[in-house]
């Protein structure tokens, strides 16, 4: 299952495994560097064990918005290689992951520390090493000097949220540097999925990040559908899109409410918290589960809509929209709220591009990155959802992008419900083609979700790679906190609202 050397693929299209040794490392580095310079995005960078010798292949998936395709590049590497990060900062988290997972050292990486504290993987496929790393034990970056102090938070936080460790280097109230150390949520999902086609895998993917069930399940199903050469029916694609936009609505509304709560504006916080639940209940009407579990299945959808449910959804959507827009309007018409959002936690467009921000955070910094319009998949090929960007990259921008996307999602769902395709064909049986590679991108509510998979000679999944948008964006949160007040951290954190388990896998 050696990766293809150099090929361009449409989103979800497969490529045949290559028998050749790949491009040279110099070529690999030049291709990536030039691509990033030309405005492409590094969607994934990872290592796969080599078939033939005790080496490994370094594989990059470059998303090229201008041509609307994905470029997959493979090259052979030994136990170390010159780090890409100094020239391509967006690679830094990926290279740390590569070093942690496979022990392949990117020489000259400025920040080579574990990201998940997971046991190393064995290239020969045997048992992993028994030397387990201790979570959170690493050399943290430190600022020295008189009156400089360190604030350590987590892994267990005060609220009902997931665990993660944050270390602030402060001078008075001002944060000079924030280091984020994760891995507490590592369950080993990526590896389990890469080891076979068990029926349990779909459920693993659905809980990869529970709030992005639809986003990840769609990416996974599109991987399998690509490998099997199966196309879901247009109706199934439309239902998937409704589910994806409901997921976006629920989370965006919830996030605006949480941001309101963090600046002490309780009316919007209370309303949005409730309205978020109402949107989740619409997803529950579709499939019985508020997070959409069981709705997206390989080949189609697990549930369909009938006439009654269609009109019920339309009616409830109207009520929810009226309530949500009125609650959000309160938020943006209250000067004290705007004053707290404005200019806090800025990430400039050039920095966002350099470190490879995706999704809401990227768009808030002015990057027009949105898989739905750049690499359309499923029903997004037929329905265009406008890309909402803002330029200032602060908390206000991230709130405004959410507000605009909420309006777009309401409109998109309503349009879909008005004209659902009529055919009702059941999901097809999946037989995966052997020796193939596939890369599938979807736009989850946080941003770009990338799944890459390969099959072996028997057509079993032999390799699986997941890149959650949080993987790209956690470092953006750290950058946003520079020179900010430590008391603004909760607000900045909510404005990104990244996933711990989606990162830790």
């Amino acid at each position, binding site marked *: 299952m050696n990766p293809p050397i150099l090929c361009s693929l449409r989103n979800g299209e497969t490529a045949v495994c290559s028998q050749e040794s790949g491009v040279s490392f110099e070529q690999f580095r030049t291709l990536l560097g030039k691509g990033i310079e030309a405005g492409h995005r590094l969607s994934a960078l990872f290592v796969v064990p080599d078939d033939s010798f005790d080496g490994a292949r370094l594989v990059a998936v470059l998303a090229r918005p201008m041509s609307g395709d994905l470029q997959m590049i493979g090259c052979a590497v030994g136990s170390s290689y010159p780090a890409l990060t100094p020239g391509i900062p967006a690679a830094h988290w990926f290279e740390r992951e590569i070093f942690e997972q496979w022990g392949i050292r990117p020489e000259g990486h400025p920040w080579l520390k574990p990201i998940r504290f997971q046991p190393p993987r064995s290239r020969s496929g045997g048992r992993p090493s028994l030397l387990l790393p201790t979570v959170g034990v690493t050399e943290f970056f430190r600022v020295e000097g008189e009156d400089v102090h360190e604030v350590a938070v987590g892994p267990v936080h005060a609220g009902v949220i997931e665990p993660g460790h944050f270390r602030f280097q402060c001078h008075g109230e001002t944060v000079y540097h924030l280091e984020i150390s994760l891995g507490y949520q590592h369950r080993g999902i990526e590896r389990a999925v890469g080891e076979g086609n068990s*029926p349990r895998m779909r459920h693993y993917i659905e809980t990869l990040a529970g709030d992005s069930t639809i986003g990840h399940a769609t990416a996974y199903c599109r991987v399998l559908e690509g490998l099997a050469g199966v196309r879901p029916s247009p109706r199934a694609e439309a239902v998937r899109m409704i589910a994806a936009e409901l997921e976006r609505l629920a989370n965006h509304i919830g996030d605006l409410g949480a941001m309101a709560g963090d600046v002490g504006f309780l009316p919007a916080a209370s309303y949005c918290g409730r309205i978020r639940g109402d949107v989740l209940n619409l997803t529950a009407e579709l499939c019985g589960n508020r997070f959409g579990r069981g709705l997206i299945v390989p080949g189609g959808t697990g549930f369909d809509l009938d006439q009654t449910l269609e009109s019920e959804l339309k009616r409830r959507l109207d009520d929810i929209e009226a309530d949500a827009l009125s609650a959000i309007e309160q938020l943006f018409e209250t000067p004290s709220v705007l004053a707290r959002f404005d200019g806090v936690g800025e990430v400039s467009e050039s920095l966002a591009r350099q470190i490879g921000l995706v999704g809401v955070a990227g768009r808030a910094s002015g990057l027009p990155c949105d898989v739905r319009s750049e690499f359309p998949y499923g029903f997004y090929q037929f329905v265009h959802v406008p890309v909402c960007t803002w330029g200032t990259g602060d908390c206000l921008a991230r709130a405004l992008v959410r507000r605009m996307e909420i309006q777009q999602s309401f409109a998109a769902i309503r349009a879909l419900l008005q004209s659902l395709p009529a055919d009702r064909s059941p999901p097809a049986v999946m037989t995966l083609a052997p020796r193939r590679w596939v890369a599938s991108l979807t736009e989850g509510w946080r941003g770009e979700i990338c799944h890459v998979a390969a099959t072996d000679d028997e057509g079993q999944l032999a390799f699986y790679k997941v890149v959650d948008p949080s993987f790209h964006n956690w470092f953006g949160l750290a950058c946003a906190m520079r020179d900010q007040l430590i008391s603004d951290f909760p607000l900045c954190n909510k404005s990104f609202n990244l996933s711990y*388990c989606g990162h830790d896998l």
Partner: protein
Amino acid sequence: MFDILKARLKQKYRTLSYPKGPPPPLPARFAGRPVIGGRPCDTRCRRCADACPVGALQREEGQFPTLDTGKCLFCRECPGVCPTGAISFTREFRLAASSRERLTVTADSQGIPPVRHEIAATIFRRSLKLRQVSAGGCNACEADTNVLTTLAWDIGRFGIQFVASPRHADGLLITGPVTRNMQLALKKPTTRYRLRNS
């Protein structure tokens, strides 16, 4: 100010009347507590156990299957493959049990197992402080736990509150399968509690 008040009126009073009033309507496709039996079951057939992706369904030769709701994902594969309809999911949403064994549904299970403990109810009456720790939770449990504190459910009405420290808490709510990396962080606050499994 006037606009805020106007919006307040528009948003109405939304706190549920449950448990005094009726429970909120459940979605039509909701799957609640499973029941086994009521219909004949071909005791040599293994289709349900084979269809279960997580091994929650156990099948002893010659007996009705048992379903461990502690493992069950409510994916509803089993009723779909059962030829006689001996397994079905009801709309009963009360799934809690006071012991691990009682989470398992068998053909002999009678109704909903009681979880209310009279002594505990007296001690914690209108004041139960809980500490939540996520240890590999996928953020769905966390999200729905947070929903309980929103104005619709408002568990604060019953004196139940999620607090910031185990020192302030009467009990612990753990979400997730407990990852290796969370073992230590979970043990530290839990030493305050005597963990019981009875």
